[in-house]
């Protein structure tokens, strides 16, 4: 298989390789990583063909493009020699085609004269076609990688452009321009990356059980999936809660977002529900043909309990006879609000995994976000399940906390250990034990003193994150927990 150079973006480093792997999986092409370094935006992969390279990269958010590798080296002498060794057989093919030759310096700059000199040093390639800065038939690029504050590059590549990435979608779906968002909306770039990790694609069915204003389902629909979602808060779906954007009034709802992007035909709709009391049919009604599952993917950013107020249906204390009677009498009244109780974050994670095991098709994927404590004592364990394989763990660090994107694959029947599936059927029923909840709280309030729930304020570009002390650990939730 030929070598290709991927020009990555130098951010969200731990997501980049996992994204490329996922995209190769979607395209059903083998990918081999020849050279990859977290510190570098240049990565060399092996792929079967240009069309495979294009299929992989055209959906990528965390790269800029892919190039057929024509040579590499630590000096220009080494690069020229390598170009001669690796690609001389290809030169004749481009002898008379309209072409373009440019320079991409990572962490460095070259003035006009230097640029011209560098490009002219490749004149031995013998390209005699017209130079076209736009719509060239073949486009070549010299890449230079500099060390921190270095004046000379430490490594160079020459590549022929094969395909541009799908990074434009980051702008198309930018929250700043979205019709309807909330304070907990995931930024467009990472929502799209999440959809990639979960292998969203045409023909597939995707679901988000914590959809909020629908950021993840929209991202999955962008990649062709048919989507649905739910949330415990009906206002977020129907939109009567209004937009988080200042000064917006009027009808803003999830459907409007799908309309904005022309994705309405892929939107199945949404319903109001609590994940721990889901209306989705679980294994009992399984259709043998689909081996039980029917969802191709599940994507979500569950509430962490602080700002989003993790709640599930139920009452803190068991209802007595009289209280039950009152609920029974009143629940049909228009203003009736079903009682909710706080819940542990670790428990909801286990519930999500059990739900995924029961509803995903074989090899279907779950991609879910969770916080990770930087403090070793309280680092949250990565939840596991006998029916799910961990595919990737990507970490997004912030100043005082970080979060992970966990991606799981639903195992096939033959991969599941004996009894694993049976446990799923029961698991979902049992719910959380009171002591688990307390244990989590204890750890939470001891260990997370420094843990501040920081959320990207909608409308910023990811660079500045503001602490929200009023709703963070020092707020209401903490007092409640402390009293227990």
């Amino acid at each position, binding site marked *: 298989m030929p070598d290709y150079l991927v020009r990555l973006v130098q951010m969200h480093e731990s997501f980049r390789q996992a994204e490329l792997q996922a995209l190769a999986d979607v395209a059903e092409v083998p990918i081999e990583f020849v050279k990859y370094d977290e510190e570098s935006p240049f990565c060399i992969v092996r792929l079967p063909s240009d069309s495979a390279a294009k299929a992989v990269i055209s959906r990528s958010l965390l790269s800029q493009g892919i190039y057929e590798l024509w040579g590499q080296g630590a000096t220009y002498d080494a690069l020229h020699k390598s170009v001669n060794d690796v690609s001389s057989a290809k030169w004749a093919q481009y002898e008379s085609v309209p072409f373009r030759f440019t320079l991409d310096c990572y962490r460095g700059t070259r003035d006009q004269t230097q640029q011209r000199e560098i490009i002219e040093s490749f004149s031995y390639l013998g390209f005699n076609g017209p130079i076209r800065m736009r719509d060239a038939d073949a486009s070549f690029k010299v890449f230079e990688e500099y060390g921190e504050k270095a004046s000379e590059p430490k490594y160079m590549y020459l590549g022929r452009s094969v395909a541009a990435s799908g990074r434009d979608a980051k702008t198309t779906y930018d929250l700043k321009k979205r019709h309807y968002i909330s304070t907990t909306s995931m930024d467009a770039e990472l929502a799209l990356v999440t959809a990639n990790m979960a292998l969203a694609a*045409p*023909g*597939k*069915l995707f679901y988000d059980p914590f959809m909020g204003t629908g950021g993840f389902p929209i991202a999955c629909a962008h990649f062709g999936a*048919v989507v*649905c979602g*739910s949330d*415990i808060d*009906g206002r977020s*779906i*129907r939109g009567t809660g209004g937009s988080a954007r200042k000064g917006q009034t009027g009808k803003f709802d999830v*459907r409007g977002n799908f309309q904005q992007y022309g994705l*309405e*035909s*892929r939107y*199945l*709709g*949404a*319903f*109001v*529900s*609590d994940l721990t*009391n*889901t*209306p*989705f*049919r*679980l294994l*009992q*009604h399984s*259709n043998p*043909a*689909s081996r039980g599952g*029917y969802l*191709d993917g599940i994507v979500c950013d569950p509430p962490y309990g602080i700002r989003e107020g993790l709640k599930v*249906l*139920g*009452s803190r204390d068991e*209802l007595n006879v009289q*209280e*039950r*009677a009152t*609920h*029974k009498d*009143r*629940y049909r009244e228009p203003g*009736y609000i*079903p*009682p909710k109780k706080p819940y542990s974050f670790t428990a909801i994670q286990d519930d999500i995994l059990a739900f995924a095991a029961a509803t995903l*098709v074989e090899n279907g994927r779950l991609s879910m976000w969770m916080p990770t404590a930087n403090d070793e004592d309280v680092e949250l364990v990565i939840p596991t399940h006998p029916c799910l394989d961990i595919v990737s763990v990507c970490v997004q660090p912030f100043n005082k906390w970080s979060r992970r994107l966990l991606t799981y694959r639903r195992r096939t029947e033959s991969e599941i250990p004996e009894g694993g599936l049976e446990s799923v059927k029961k698991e*979902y*029923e049992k719910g959380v034990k009171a002591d688990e909840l307390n244990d989590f709280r204890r750890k939470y309030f001891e260990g997370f003193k420094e843990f501040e729930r920081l959320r990207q304020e909608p409308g910023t570009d990811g660079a500045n994150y503001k602490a929200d002390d009023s709703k963070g650990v020092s707020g209401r939730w903490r007092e409640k927990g402390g009293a227990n």
Partner: protein
Amino acid sequence: MKLLTLNFLTCAIKTCKTSPSSFPLHPRDAELEILETDINLPFLKNILPRLMWDELRTITSELGLPELPPAAPTREDLVEPGAQAAEGEEVEEQPSQTAKDLHRVLLETTVKEGKLACGNCGHEYKVMEGVPNFLLPGHLV
């Protein structure tokens, strides 16, 4: 909410889930709306084996929609038997009338208002502005 979702939804009450009569949910006083969309053949093909056909027929008949055939169509039934592709040539598949009918039922017919009732416990879930509400009242959790 498009009708296809009813193929996946049952009663939210845990003790109902094990009872076959909790699926499908039965639409009551349903106000339907047709929202036309482009046909999505790859999706129909993918989803077809996951449909609970008998239950789907129950729902459509309860809604007074045209009767669906007694046996589920196959994937081949969804594609118009068209021109044979020449060597190395890809011919785009055309949806058959069956595919178009299925598209109309599953992906263009939506429930706007009404209720969804569990056949096991009788609990009714309200649908408002196309959004069903499955939150359970205090005494049913």
